[in-house]
């Protein structure tokens, strides 16, 4: 039997740099590998890699597997599944780390079923079991109402890791890394992209915002997203977000969807307006430093999660809240 050893990170590139999630994976992967006295490899397969190959080395990869892709290939999950399988065959890692991102959510399971491996998705913690020296994967289940700890019964073990769950650590530009070229993988699936439609979101970007103002089903329609919620967000230099129902109903673009099946945010301040606090929503914002809730129902679950709360209709609370903030912030 082949011996599986070390950690392989499947990297993603954004704007000519490693994505922040990839940096987190390398931080976590380096820690695990050091504990085991093993190596870290990283795949960087992109149409515009920029500095990301060197960056992967500086962030702890001992070997970087690279592939130059066309733009179409870079957007095809099938191509990444094949490249990941190729890198795994070459590196024989014991642990494969993939971001629980748009790509990773598809890549992780497909790779596992293709290789007969075990995968745990959306992990928030990875620890080495002192007895077995294998990695235990912790994943929220039941929308976040419980945590499950899994061990793998098949190798390699694959984990997709929730963004922002791990810390990236500091880069070290003098860390040596060898570069290995992967063979090109043609896209062979009968899948054709006919058209790509970008939904314009103006203002502060949700993922980077230090303050987020979110609206829920209780907003009752699209209007508050353009008025009271937006005005509050503007005063706080905040990004606007939403729970799932406003996005499903078309009151807000899907790009604003926060939660288990939407974006994960961890701002300093999260203001939840007319959101009940379902566990699947909280999964996307419970990493916030401070949560403020405005809800007309004093019994709403959100008040069990929030640091500050006001019971009242948002129509009454928000204008006065925003006005007072404006006064305080211009003083």
């Amino acid at each position: 039997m082949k011996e599986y050893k070390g950690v392989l990170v499947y990297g993603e590139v954004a704007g000519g740099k490693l994505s922040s999630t990839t940096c987190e994976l390398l931080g976590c992967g380096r820690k695990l590998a050091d504990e085991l006295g093993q190596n870290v490899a990283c795949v960087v397969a992109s149409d515009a890699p920029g500095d990301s190959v060197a960056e992967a080395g500086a962030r702890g990869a001992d070997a970087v597997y690279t592939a130059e892709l066309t733009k179409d290939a870079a957007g095809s999950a099938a191509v990444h599944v094949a490249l990941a399988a190729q890198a795994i065959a070459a590196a024989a890692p014991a642990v494969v780390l993939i971001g629980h991102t748009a790509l990773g959510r598809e890549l992780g399971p497909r790779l596992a079923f293709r290789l007969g491996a075990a995968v745990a998705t959306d992990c928030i913690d990875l620890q080495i079991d002192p007895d077995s020296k294998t990695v235990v994967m912790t994943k929220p289940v039941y929308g976040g109402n419980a945590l499950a700890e899994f061990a793998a019964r098949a190798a390699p073990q694959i984990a997709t890791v929730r963004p922002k769950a791990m810390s990236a650590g500091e880069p070290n530009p003098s860390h040596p890394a060898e570069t290995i070229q992967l063979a090109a993988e043609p896209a062979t699936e009968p899948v054709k992209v006919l058209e790509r439609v970008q939904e314009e979101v103006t203002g502060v970007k949700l993922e980077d915002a230090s303050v987020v103002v979110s609206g829920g089903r209780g907003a009752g329609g699209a209007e508050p997203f353009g008025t009271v919620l937006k005005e509050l967000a503007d005063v706080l230099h905040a990004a606007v977000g939403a729970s799932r129902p406003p996005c499903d109903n078309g009151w807000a673009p899907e790009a604003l969807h926060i939660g288990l099946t939407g974006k994960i945010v961890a701002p300093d301040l999260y203001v939840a307006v007319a959101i009940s606090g379902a566990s699947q929503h909280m999964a996307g914002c419970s990493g916030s430093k401070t949560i403020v809730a405005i809800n007309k129902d004093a019994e709403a679950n959100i008040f069990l999660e929030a640091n500050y709360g006001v019971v009242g209709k948002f129509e009454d609370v928000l204008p006065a809240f925003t006005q007072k903030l404006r006064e305080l912030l211009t003083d």
Partner: protein
Amino acid sequence: MSDLRMVVCCKQVLDPEAPPSSFKVDAKTMRMTLPPDIKQVIGQYDEFALEAALRIRDKAGGKITVLSLGNNMARDVIKKSLAVGADELVLLEDAAFEDSDSWSTAYALSKAVQKLDGYDVIFCGRQSSDWDAGQVGAGLAELLGLPVVTLARKVEAVDGKLRIEQVIPDGYQVIEVDTPAVVTVTSELGNLRYAILKGIMAAARKQPIVWTPADLGLDTTEVGEPGRRLQLNRLFQPVKEAHCEMVEGENAAEAGANLAIRLREAKLI
């Protein structure tokens, strides 16, 4: 092309929208429990997947088979799929299927799909409403050697192919895929329609087809707990402490203003 043969995978789950405080882990059996008066439901995304199939049949015709794996499934819950219009319900039901993980679930479902009288599209939810794995759809595709399109918010049958709007981080893309294919469905597709009386009465008369592991040529090492690739070591609930400071006022507006003052005092803004 002849009518599309569609398969929809639906799992019966604890109601994911029951109050969070009502979920309790039974540490001994490592199972999640809810009070017995809270009824089980079909997973939310599984319902969206069923709606996707129904919309295709509304326009282009076709046949819808619902597949569900589990044990002791409540007939009134899972037969909702027939009441809203599925043509056929096949249950993979046996004690041996208990404690499956995504691997053993997808493996058994792949055998069941192959035992059907042909298939063109397999619909799954993007993720289950209990274990939130998001694996079975992609797993079925790999096991059956099919393409998969994930996160569909709209699915149409056009000239023997599927045309799918797939959600991507900053919008959506329109994808065309040959059949047979697997499609996983997201919430933007829209809610499952309500059952009408005629459907409910027709469903009452229909009996589900039940297949056991033996019917699928599976031996007991391949299903349920022995067939898992992931071993569940622990299931637990971290203790949460409520620590909410309620800000009040003479009326809601004053409470809003006081909230601003309080956040300022706490140096949060």
